[in-house]
């Protein structure tokens, strides 16, 4: 690997890391504002203009709270739990293609942390490690309620990961690759008719698969209506009952990073990633009639595509919050029944349908 590429990659990784953290930070603010708006309130508006310094104030509060270790707890694991949750949440964003390539001179740079041909497996592998964060945290608390909450959370995550993986297999059958970049590029189409772009998005080929994936994403990120791990009434506070100060903050914060990552994955897998309609028409128009160089026109398209990808991600994040303040929580047995008896069979049926359509040549 050449040095400039390596340098560029480290910059991209750093930026992706920073952006993930920033977006997660402001998700906490957005959550409160959206909750307030949906409930006819105003929400935080005291800290800074429009309350924009509110995440900062929350962070100061979290850091200055008392650090508490329950008696008899395994201290090392107790600290390791939230760290693991945070690390796994942040790691998975490395393979997401945030944009097409930028070219400067003879060098082309990808707006992606690591371009690997196992991108999807990486995301799933890392996300499934997140279960350990929950489980270790619950176990190390030396508290029966925490342990019960952790077991519930772990079994929920594992159950829904099955359906999620199965719904994804249908996408992989269409694309034939695990690389997220390849999957994105396949959803664009050069030289076809103008709205072809949108029809090439996987949501058009996999509507059922997308709904299953979406539902599982809610369960995986422990969001309402599947936020059983943090049930106040049944298990005090779920797996993080014993946690205080920033260790609790890390657990809560990793949830928001997870939301960001899963929104990005959904945008990339089903909503065309950085592609947008008329992108090639715009590029050719700039290059032919406006006298732009093809490379700089392509760079502009890439920048626009990145912005639009973030637009899609924000739309999903908003949708997560919208759902949270609309639906009540499931009961635990309902949750498990939905996962095992409805979503997994539906995902299998979706695979069969996709396979049939591919065999008979209806979709490529």
């Amino acid at each position: 690997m050449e040095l400039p590429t390596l340098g560029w990659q480290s910059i991209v990784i750093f930026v992706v890391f920073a952006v993930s953290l920033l977006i997660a930070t402001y998700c906490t603010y957005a959550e409160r504002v959206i909750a307030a708006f949906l409930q006819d309130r105003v929400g935080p508006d005291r800290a800074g203009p429009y309350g924009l310094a509110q995440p900062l104030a929350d962070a100061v509060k979290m850091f200055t709270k008392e650090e508490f270790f329950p008696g008899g707890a395994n201290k090392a694991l107790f600290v390791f739990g939230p760290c693991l949750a945070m690390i796994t949440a942040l790691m998975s964003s490395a393979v997401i293609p945030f944009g097409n390539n930028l070219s400067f001179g003879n060098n082309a740079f990808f707006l992606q942390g690591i371009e690997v041909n196992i991108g999807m497996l990486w995301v799933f592998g890392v996300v499934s490690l997140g279960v350990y964060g929950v489980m270790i945290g619950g176990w190390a608390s030396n508290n029966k309620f925490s342990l019960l909450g952790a077991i519930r959370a772990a079994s929920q995550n594992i159950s829904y990961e099955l359906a999620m993986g199965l719904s994804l297999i249908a996408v992989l059958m269409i694309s034939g690759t695990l690389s997220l970049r390849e999957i994105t590029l396949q959803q664009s189409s050069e030289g076809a008719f103008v709205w072809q772009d949108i029809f090439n998005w996987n949501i058009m080929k996999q509507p059922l698969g997308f709904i299953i994936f979406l539902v599982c994403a809610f369960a995986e990120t422990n969001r309402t209506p599947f936020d059983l791990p943090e049930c106040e009434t049944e298990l005090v506070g779920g797996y993080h009952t014993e946690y205080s100060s920033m260790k609790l903050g890390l657990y809560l914060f990793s949830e928001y990073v997870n939301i960001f990552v899963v929104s990005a994955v959904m945008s990339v897998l089903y909503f065309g990633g950085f592609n947008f309609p008329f992108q090639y028409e715009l590029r050719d128009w700039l290059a032919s009639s406006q006298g732009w160089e093809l490379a700089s026109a392509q760079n502009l398209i890439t920048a626009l595509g990145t912005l639009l990808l973030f637009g899609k991600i924000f739309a999903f994040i908003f949708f997560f919050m919208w759902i949270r303040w609309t639906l009540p929580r499931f009961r635990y047995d309902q949750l498990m029944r939905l996962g095992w008896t409805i979503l997994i069979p539906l995902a299998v049926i979706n695979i069969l349908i996709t396979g049939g359509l591919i065999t008979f040549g209806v979709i490529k």
Partner: protein
Amino acid sequence: MQPLTNRAKKLEKKPMTLAERAYLPAIFQGLSITMRHFFMKKATVRYPEEVRPFSPIFRGLHVLKRDEQGRERCTACGLCAVACPAEAITMVAGERKKGEEGLYREEKYAISYEVNMLRCIFCGLCEEACPKAAVYLQADKMAPPRFERDEFIYGKDRLVEPVDPSKRSERGIQLTPEQAEALRNKMVQQPA
């Protein structure tokens, strides 16, 4: 059994239709409801900057009124203390000396006049009982919160109206004709 009202509705428990079992239509209905609320008018009052209007019959913090010449109206007759169901008002009466005619209207006046805000129930019976129209519960001012119990005993220093009419409470208090005239002039000068 005899129904209490005619509003009783008979409910039938039917098996759910496919749309109901699929759960998604209900979710979309819920989402549309919350989305409508997103754009609705907010009920919040941003308190320190924005103050919610008081009700016209609100009874707040006590005030001891002055008359049109700036003299204290209270003559320490004690009727307010007698009328007070919570026994919150205590006073000590004194005799006006020579040269104090500009300070007190009657020959008898209150040397001290204390209202215990911890006992007061803001019933307004003191202002009904007062024959000299001296004590009122202001319509636009609440008794503020304090840290110490003894700070809730309001003496004359905090109850008697300021001499400067422009510093006085303006809403809902029965004014003397002269005060009303002055207020009207002030409002004509600065139309709100």
